[in-house]
């Protein structure tokens, strides 16, 4: 309600009720009408909504059966908004989805990362494990000997990406992180570095531009 048109503000939304010898104050008193409080009519209304969706989808299924019988199942209108995941993928997946990580590389293929632990510190899931080492090149000085991401613990918040001072860690849009083996869901340094730049560029989008190489 526009307060300019209605300068009189509504009553403060609370209700006092004296029950069982005590004063109860309800902060959000129910604003249901009597009809709504009868419950059964509203329940029926709700059931009619869900029921109609049920019948609509069953009808669509019959339509699909018709298409399927003619071998054109793919063209049938779909009731479901979900997909059969591994076989199908959603065509409307957002281009800024946060998925699998990569470590960006220097020109010689070494990690950009300087093992500063900022990502490990920022990570709310504590799923980044780094061991730092002394790099032979004194200009680089520090680099990750080990860099493990437990992708099964990761919540894809992107904090690591944001915390990194040298743009060494990126989240791609690739969301196929599922696996049957936990061991395979720990991505080590070499795996994180093993992304193929051309493929990644074609298939996945980097929010904020291309990853820096070198």
């Amino acid at each position, binding site marked *: 309600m526009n307060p300019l048109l209605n300068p009189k503000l509504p009553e403060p939304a609370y209700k006092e009720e004296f029950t069982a010898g005590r004063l109860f104050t309800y902060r959000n008193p129910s604003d249901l009408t009597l009809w709504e409080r009868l419950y059964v009519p509203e329940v029926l209304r709700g059931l009619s909504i869900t029921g109609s969706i049920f019948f609509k989808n069953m009808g669509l299924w019959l339509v699909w059966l018709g298409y399927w019988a003619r071998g054109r199942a793919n063209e049938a209108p779909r009731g479901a908004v979900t997909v059969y995941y591994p076989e199908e993928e959603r065509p409307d997946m957002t281009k800024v989805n946060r998925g699998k990580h990569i470590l960006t590389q220097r020109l010689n293929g070494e990690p950009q990362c300087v093992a500063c632990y*900022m990502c490990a510190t920022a990570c709310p899931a504590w799923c980044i494990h780094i061991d730092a080492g002394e790099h032979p090149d004194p200009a680089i000085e520090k680099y990750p000997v080990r860099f493990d991401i437990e992708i099964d613990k990761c919540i894809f918040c992107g904090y690591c990406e944001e915390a990194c001072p040298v743009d060494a860690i990126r989240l791609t849009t690739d969301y196929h992180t599922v696996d049957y083996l936990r061991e395979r869901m720990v991505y080590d340094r070499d795996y994180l570095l093993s992304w193929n730049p051309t493929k990644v560029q074609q298939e996945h989008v980097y929010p904020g531009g291309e990853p820096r190489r070198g």
Partner: protein
Amino acid sequence: MSEIKTVTLTIDGRQVTVPAGTSVLEASKVIGAEVPHFCYHPGLPVDGNCRMCIVEIDGARRPPVSCATSCADGMVVRTDTAAVKAIRASVMEFLLVNHPIDCPICDKAGECMLQDYYMQHDRKRSELRDEKVHKPRLVKFSDRIVFNGERCILCTRCVRFTENVTRTHELGIVNRGDRALVEVAGGGSLHNRYQDNVADICPVGALTKTDFRFKKRVWFLKHTDSICPGCSRGCNVVLDHDKNEVVRVMPRFRAEVNGHWMCDEGRDIHKRIGVDRLLAPRVKLPGREGGATPEEALEAVAEVLGEARKTPDRLAAIASSWGTNEEAFLFAKLFGETLRTPHMDVKSDSDEGYPEDDVLHTADHNPNRAGVVAQGVVPNDKKGGLGLAGILDACRRGDIQCLVVWGPGLSGHLPGGESELALVLSKVARVVYLGWKDDPVARLAHVALPTPAWAEKDGSYTNCDGIKSTSVRALDPPPGVRGEIEVLADLQARLKGRSYGRTFRELAAKTGAPLPPRRPAPALRQPSLYRHASGVARP
């Protein structure tokens, strides 16, 4: 005794009374007005070169540096006026002109004074448009210290340390202006035994310890007050540890013991924790051979001692000089009172270490000989008790039937070393060993019980000057290993002796141990932005 003269002055509108000669900076600390500073260090002579600690004093012609200004009666000091803040911001800007700001790879990040003060007093972007001045990086000052010239803010703390504390004069500043650089005099390397302290006092990450470099980010560390068992000075230290592993040892200020410093041997003392450990009990008694649970081993010890009790004259107990006062107290009570043996003495557990010097290190490489003796682990002269040498002689003669050895290093007391030890112990019917090291005695003993290392237990230590310090348990002992206090209290109970308590806090009242302040449980992650991450009050 002469009366200490005091002066009263006003700082930020609050009256404060301090001894005459106190600097304004120290006086401000009293009322909690923290004056930022880089080059001032309470353990070093005042230099006043960083200009960060400038305050306003009424009547002064221009704001003076508070570290070099002595308090005077009636002084009116202001530490947080707009002018002071502007000066601090300018100093910060100036210090940061050529600073590389490579905090991501700098080990000091998280406990760096430059970082903290930047967040508190500056928070501006750099105005510099030119290339920063480059200086030598990764200069090895010695095997222990690496120097990064770009990060150095030329506070000269390190120089003053070598001049005034160790008096070895290795470091000096060469060149002027933005070319100035700390260098080791004559191109040599640092050669004193206290060099790790320069990395501690360096307010920035210019000096780093090779030992700690890149091991751990400081905000992951947990801090536990402890002592260094390297020598009988018993320097008060903080153990910085994470994931049940000590990563570094830092000195803890204790004016009467070690001041602000500690030696390099102490820095490495944590490396001894994992070496040569006795991890599981061993029992070699007839009918009880083979592996034993801690419970069974304790039972075996009680059995052996119960037997030995019948002839107290033929029982001898040798205590560890690494044990705590509380353990020594229980040891003395168990053997002196309950088992009534006259033969008790303390041995040296360790004889490795630096030679004595006039800074901190003493000749005795055991932290608590004085304390163990003070708790009554001495031969009972009235009953003809034997000292350590006497006990060993008696063993050799076969006069001792049961020998209890607490702690490693007994072979060091025999000229023939291990082979002689085997000979001596073969004459003793029952040898019981109690200790954290897999010592030769542990291999020869009939029962050997593992105990925790010093970092794995609570206890107090009395140093060579008779000053008691308390060490708090920082690590979990290996699984199944119980502390001496518990073991001795259990034996006391099994042998029907008096109970004196089975925790450190119960026994501390009896030994007069200073109780450590209960530190709040460490936050899972300590935020490091605006506080010293170490949580340790640093000068």
